[in-house]
């Protein structure tokens, strides 16, 4: 039996556990006497302590042991949840996550931090015992009143557990929550790894069996004593009793398998067996989902091929079945894509922590409000979105929100406000981050850009154009290069990341009153509604949502336009891309051309092609590793007849149109 499989799973689950821990700690900060939360934190420490030692993460076990002790004191009312306690717990939580990746405990940073944390915890405990000696315990020691017993639980993991996708950590958590425990390191005999757990509890054997219900084949539970065998004092007393009774002293641990006791006492008191709050949620390996998505997209492709192939009249008898399949596969697609959607709230916890830490570090008070965190986005998008959002939040707190004294001078509330709002409209999801700070100083931005040589000093710019300067690489207005932001690469990367997700970012600012960043994203990106266009024998796809109008033009008017490289549309001159030139096709234009007017980032531009074929539901296929960096192909899609069409990246196409960057021919292999 290979334990490492369990280990990987443990690491993954421990990460989840610490994720929830962070959420609970932040909640605890606003409500420090919430006994439910305290209990929750205690439980996490308890579980981590036990399970990490099983997998050889001794350092995690050590540090959580101490924290468990602290929260035990808190539970008993002997200690209060103060800011130092929370700070320490949060740092420890991060430390645990580092340790999970440093199994051998080799990273000098981790070693140092372990040491520091240990001494901070000790100080905290010492300080506490001095301060709060007389406080009476609030919690009744339930264990004291009842009779304690010691159980020995042998756990034999096997591969079947992995096949059955059993959450072994949850089982252990339930088990260890029953009482005090001691875990022996895995014993290896005859290739059978097993763990021996000694559990001291007031609960009956039924409660233990409830906890291991789903994996009982892998466990052996034996009651070995009616006392806490780890409490040597108690044993001594017992021995004295026995001696007095002149009965032979029992060796409590040496019990054979035959002595398994099945207590018949019903388990009334099972409140400590935690009911899983996410019972109606199922966590699935992401690769399984990917596989499902792949099959869905194959089905959609096959379906559109079938629809195309059966257009002829002779297929009339089966037409209605084809339509039925078409309908069902569309529903199936919608449903499957829905599985991949996760609420934005999942990542908001991370931001709360960030805001908390940053505002402390910068000595600013910030109130972080969220709205619409139940809005759902594709899992991949949420993952990719977190980094740019973190950057924006940093910017807002660092540059946007003013220190309290400045805010008071300006007649604002001393506590700054940062608001994250998300809402959906059609197939789009909007994420808005709004601060009530400085706002952008347009004059300063402009001067900075001139100073950096990014724009000419006399260039007339609209307000929006000035704001967009902060997306230019190498632009940073921060007067000092702070640790938090201002490396001058930030917003440029933010914009790029968002464009990579086929999204857009927009900034609105009101000097003196704050800035709003709005990110517009597609809810799911794997299937696009597109327009199929044709240039000579090349087919390409343009996302339908970017197209404003389609029209026709004659080639002579294009030639007239080649000098200024703009077209007249709706009384304005807009830049254009001639696909024939872009693709380096040597043939002459046909007499009549098609013009597609696209709108992206609030600006219009035109794309010139030979013809428009029609709408196409495109399953987006990535370009593959070899061609991933293509200048204007965002991916490919399979057409009805099995050939492929390039999906044009409208963001980059627009850049090409604006900068009139037709490729330098014959240069592509350099």
């Amino acid at each position, binding site marked *: 039996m290979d334990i490492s499989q369990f280990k990987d799973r443990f690491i993954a689950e421990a990460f989840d556990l610490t994720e929830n821990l962070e959420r609970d700690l932040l909640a605890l900060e606003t409500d420090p006497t919430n006994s439910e939360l305290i209990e929750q934190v205690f439980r996490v420490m308890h579980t981590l302590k036990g399970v990490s030692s099983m997998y050889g993460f001794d350092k995690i076990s050590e540090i959580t042991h101490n924290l468990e002790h602290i929260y035990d004191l808190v539970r008993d009312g002997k200690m209060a949840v103060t800011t130092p306690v929370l700070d320490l717990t949060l740092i420890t939580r991060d430390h645990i996550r580092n340790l999970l990746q440093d199994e051998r405990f080799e990273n000098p940073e981790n070693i140092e931090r372990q040491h520091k944390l240990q001494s901070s915890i000790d100080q905290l405990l010492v300080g506490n015992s001095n301060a709060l000696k007389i406080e009476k315990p609030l919690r009744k020691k339930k264990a004291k009143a009842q009779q304690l017993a010691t159980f020995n639980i042998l756990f034999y993991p096997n591969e079947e557990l992995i096949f059955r996708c059993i959450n072994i950590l949850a089982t252990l958590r339930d088990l260890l929550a029953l009482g005090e425990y001691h875990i022996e390191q895995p014993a290896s005999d005859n290739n059978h790894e097993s763990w021996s757990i000694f559990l001291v509890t007031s609960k009956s054997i039924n409660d233990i069996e409830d906890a291991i219900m789903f994996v009982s084949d892998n466990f052996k539970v034996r009651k070995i004593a009616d006392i806490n065998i780890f409490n040597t004092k108690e044993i001594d007393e017992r021995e004295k009793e026995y001696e007095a009774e002149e009965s032979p002293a029992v060796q409590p641990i040496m019990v054979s398998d035959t002595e398994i006791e099945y207590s018949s006492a019903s388990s009334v008191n099972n409140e400590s067996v935690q009911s899983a709050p996410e019972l109606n949620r199922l966590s699935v390996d992401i690769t399984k989902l990917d596989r499902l998505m*792949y099959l869905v*997209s*194959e089905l959609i492709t096959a379906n559109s091929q079938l629809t195309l192939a059966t257009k002829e009249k002779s297929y009339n008898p089966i037409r209605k079945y084809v339509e039925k399949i078409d309908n069902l596969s569309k529903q199936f697609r919608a449903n499957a894509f829905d599985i991949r959607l996760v609420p934005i709230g999942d990542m908001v916890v991370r931001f709360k922590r960030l805001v908390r830490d940053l505002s402390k570090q910068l000595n600013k008070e910030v109130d972080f409000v969220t709205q619409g965190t139940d809005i759902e986005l594709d899992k991949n998008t949420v993952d990719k979105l977190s980094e740019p959002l973190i950057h924006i939040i940093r910017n807002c707190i660092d540059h946007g929100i003013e220190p309290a004294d400045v805010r008071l001078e300006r007649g604002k509330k001393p506590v700054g406000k940062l608001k994250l709002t998300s809402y959906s409209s059609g197939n789009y999801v909007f994420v808005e981050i709004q601060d009530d700070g400085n706002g952008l100083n347009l004059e300063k931005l402009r001067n900075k850009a001139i100073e950096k040589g990014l724009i000419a000093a006399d260039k007339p710019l609209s307000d929006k154009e000035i704001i967009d300067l902060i997306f230019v690489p190498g632009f940073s207005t921060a007067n000092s290069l702070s640790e938090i932001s201002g490396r001058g690469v930030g917003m440029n990367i933010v914009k790029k990341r968002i464009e990579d997700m086929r999204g857009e970012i927009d900034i609105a600012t009101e000097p003196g009153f704050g800035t709003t960043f709005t990110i517009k994203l597609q809810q799911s990106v794997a299937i696009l509604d597109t327009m199929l266009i044709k240039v000579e024998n*090349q*087919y390409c796809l343009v996302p339908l949502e970017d197209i404003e109008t389609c029209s026709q033009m004659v080639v002579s008017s294009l030639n007239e336009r080649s000098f200024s490289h703009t077209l007249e549309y709706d009384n304005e001159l807009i830049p254009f891309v001639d696909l024939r030139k*872009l*693709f*380096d096709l040597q043939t002459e234009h046909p007499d009549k051309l098609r013009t597609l007017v696209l709108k992206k980032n609030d600006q219009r531009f035109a794309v010139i092609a030979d013809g428009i074929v029609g709408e196409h539901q495109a399953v987006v*296929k*990535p*370009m*593959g*590793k*070899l*061609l*991933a*960096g*293509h*200048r*204007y*192909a965002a*991916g*490919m899609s*399979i057409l009805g*007849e*099995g*050939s*492929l*069409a*390039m999906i044009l990246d409208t963001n*980059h196409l627009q850049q090409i149109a604006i900068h009139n960057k037709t*490729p330098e021919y014959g240069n*592509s*292999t*350099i």
Partner: protein
Amino acid sequence: METQQSKEAYLSFRLGNELFAVSVHKVLEVLQKQVVTEVPETPDFIAGVINFRGEIVPVAETHIKFHMPTRSQEEKSVIVVLELQSGTDNLLISMTADAVKDVFEISDSEIKPVPPMGNSISSEFISGMVQKNGKFIMLLNIDKVFSTEEVGQLASSTLV
């Protein structure tokens, strides 16, 4: 027994008048009559891309790659889909061939060293020669043919 173990299977194919072979372990599939979609702004030797089991796979034009005379349009061609090792990644690439001949097994001892070659094909692409039925077959070192640098070049050449 020992000779049995060191035997390896190769797929041979014809390019113009020459015979080449690649290890069958690298070959995923041989495709016929495939629609190749051209992609602008890719290196000269990339004829385009195909849809292979739902993935977009580039097609290398072997004649251009090996500096061989361009074949006539009428000639039938097949596409050999290969899986290459590039660093820790597996990459899919495909290459054109005029015709696939057969699959044969040879042992290491039958492989002859590469003689100094003319100007057309870089000798580092060839790992050895085999003589079969009086004809010489060049064994392609396919990981070298589409080496990491070139694979990188393929990707970066299309970057802005």
